[in-house]
């Protein structure tokens, strides 16, 4: 009984979100887009709907003029698996994938005109999966070949999310070179992080496809996906298994993870807590009756007659005043000592050059 109760209260989340970011553009970074789309596909398969996924792709590979197979993005060589299709909803595309937009999505500081599909509408019962891929270095991740996000900024963004109660638990996965440096600075609770390589190591790409001409996937994400293919919504696989994915022999780099900020034991955290959208349903046999005769709701506040005057806009720019304005009085004047000194000097120079004899003409 204790076990069952514990099982029920394993995780306090009620909804799942995913933010999947590919930060590189240009054709030769095909693999980053393929990485992100593969994770998108898995996450959707496991139940997270498009309305809860914020997908940011910095470049369009499917319709890239250099793509020999247009409208496809393959993630296995020999074109086995097409991760693109007409059910892929990209929320931030091309030049919209910037550090500023990414941070705005995370912190929720978004202009009011942003459509719902571009917002991360999470609350304090949301588990969020954040997956980032691209080119990175020690302490930064490069966006679009023109700007970077640093690990400090990312940590501060997560702290803002925590303080605004925007997540219950957060899983951060990053597949870039020296990826472990990106999670070094996190300091907010309930964050678990995985990275494809340690500081000083490069993450390597997996399979080049000779038909397409570029590398299709990165190693770490490839093996993570192989792992995820075996997960289904009811599986009980936990995070410790995810940490074992892609050992050094397969990945060449050493994947890292960080669980010190996470309050639960990783053993007890299910993969589907982050990658899937598993709802908890409690079936009850009790009946609840709704009272038919509910008395009219009495307004507590008596209606007052507000003294209404005709509404009008305040005078924004007093045009009439401006066009008839007199020129402003200058408030600053040079000090008297300065003027005296300057003119004395000028007169001295004049008399020195042209002789004292002119003095008598002045006086």
């Amino acid at each position, binding site marked *: 009984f204790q076990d069952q109760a514990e099982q029920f209260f394993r995780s306090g989340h009620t909804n799942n979100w995913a933010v999947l970011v590919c930060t590189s553009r240009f054709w030769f970074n095909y693999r980053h887009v393929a990485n992100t789309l593969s994770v998108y596909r898995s996450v959707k398969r496991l139940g997270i709907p498009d309305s809860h996924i914020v997908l940011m792709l910095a470049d369009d590979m499917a319709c890239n003029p250099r793509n020999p197979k247009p409208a496809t993005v393959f993630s296995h060589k020999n074109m086995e698996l097409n991760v693109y299709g007409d059910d892929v909803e990209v929320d931030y595309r091309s030049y919209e994938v910037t550090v500023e937009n990414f941070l705005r999505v995370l912190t929720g500081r978004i202009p009011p005109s942003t459509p719902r599909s571009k917002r991360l509408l999470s609350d304090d019962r949301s588990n969020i999966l954040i997956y980032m891929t691209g080119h990175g270095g020690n302490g930064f991740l490069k966006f679009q070949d023109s700007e970077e996000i640093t690990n400090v900024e990312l940590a501060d963004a997560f702290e803002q999310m925590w303080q605004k109660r925007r997540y219950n638990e957060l899983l951060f996965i990053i597949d870039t070179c020296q990826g472990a440096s990106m999670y070094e600075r996190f300091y907010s609770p309930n964050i678990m992080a995985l990275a494809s390589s340690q500081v000083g190591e490069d993450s390597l790409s997996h399979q080049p496809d000779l038909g397409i001409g570029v590398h299709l996937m990165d190693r770490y994400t490839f093996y993570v996906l192989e792992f995820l293919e075996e997960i289904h919504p009811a599986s009980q696989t936990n995070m410790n298994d995810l940490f074992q994915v892609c050992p050094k022999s397969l990945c060449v780099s050493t994947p890292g993870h960080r669980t010190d900020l996470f309050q639960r034991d990783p053993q007890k955290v299910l993969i589907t807590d982050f990658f899937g959208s598993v709802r908890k349903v409690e079936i009850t046999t009790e009946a609840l009756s709704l009272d038919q005769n509910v008395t009219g709701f009495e307004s507590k506040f008596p209606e007052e007659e507000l003294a209404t005057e005709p509404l009008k806009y305040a005078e924004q720019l007093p045009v009439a005043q401006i066009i008839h304005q007199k020129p402003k009085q200058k408030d600053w004047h040079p000090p008297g000592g*300065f003027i005296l*000194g*300057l003119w004395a000097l000028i007169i001295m120079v004049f008399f020195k050059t042209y002789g004292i004899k002119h003095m008598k003409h002045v006086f």
Partner: protein
Amino acid sequence: MAAPLVLVVLAAVTVRAALYRSSLAVFIAERVEVASPLNAWKRVVEGLALLDLGVSPYSGAIFHETPLIVYLFHFLIEYAELVFMITDVLTAVALYLAIQDFNKVVFKKQKLLIELDKYAPDVAELIQTPMEMHYIPLKVALFYLLNPYTVMSCVAKSTCAINNSVIAFFILATIKGSAFLSAVFLALATYQSLYPVTLFAPALLYLLQRQFIPIKLKSKSFWLYTMQYASLYLCSLVVIICLSFFLLNSWDFIPSVYGFILSVPDLTPNIGLFWYFFAEMFEHFSLFFVCVFQINVFFYTIPLAIKLKEHPVFFMFVQLAIISIFKSYPTLGDVALYMAFLPVWSHLYRFLRNIFILSCVLIFCSFLFPVLWHLWIYAGSANSNFYYAITLTFNIGQILLISDYFYAFLRREYYLTHGLHLTRQDGTEAMLVLK
């Protein structure tokens, strides 16, 4: 010669007034080629507005003018256009008078050397005659006033015109021989933009020549005169700086003006060489390269002084050109100043080798500046490399122009003393090469 000069002045003033009233005035005022962070009119207005609000104009790295300019424009800001037109006219008149005097000096020296038989027998065609030199002062004034660069600079109301005018007065004072006035104007010019300090050497050489003091390092009279002139210059500089302190009761202007000129923090594109280089440089190298670039401006003074010690006015021309090419924020107004001197060396025309190509380069680059700016900033189909390429080409054109004139000048001097037909030891015709 007064009447043609007045006509030229009238024509220039008309052109400028017409441009002020047209819609081009706003367009030209925003061009980066004429308005640099040091001398843009917008910034002067901003600084004065800040002063009216009770804040020091040097707060905020917008205003980089000297306090004397603040004083000048505090009262004259409503008549700004008139001020700039008058400044241009004054510069032209000063150059006119200076070149008139300089021509007299040239004749006297030529006559002396002919009587002393210093010239070779067959160089009659190289000697300058009064007939051909009669119109040179007018041409100088014309070149300055009607040069499109000057007109654009004036319409943009860039304070470079004031700097040019001070330098022109300095040249007039030097050529007239008044060491005191020359030191005062040089101090004013240095006070405003720092680089004219290199003009100290040619001015000193000219004044020594005029006093017939030989330029030998061991001669006591040489050192005495040098000390006198240097002390005049330094004292006036110190007096001007202390006076500026009293205007705003603070030393703020020193880092804002001189610190700004020397450390080049603002990397807005201009026609100079600094901005692109420093835009893509890592922080820890920037100090080193700033020092290298600034030394480059001052570096040519001593070698040129050694080579051109007999010809200080040509030295001054070359030095002005070097300042306007290598300074940290050059504008077309600086270019216009040294170009005004080109008629003085028109007798060198037969020795100039690349003048056609160079003039084409300079003209094309001047037209391409706004085109590539538009392509880069507005159309987005070019990038800063394109604009920098034109900047580079323009500067290379200027440098080659100066070295061409330098070569032609030295060649003529050599021919004057060694005869026009040079032969090698075996009797074949020889060519002079600048090594």
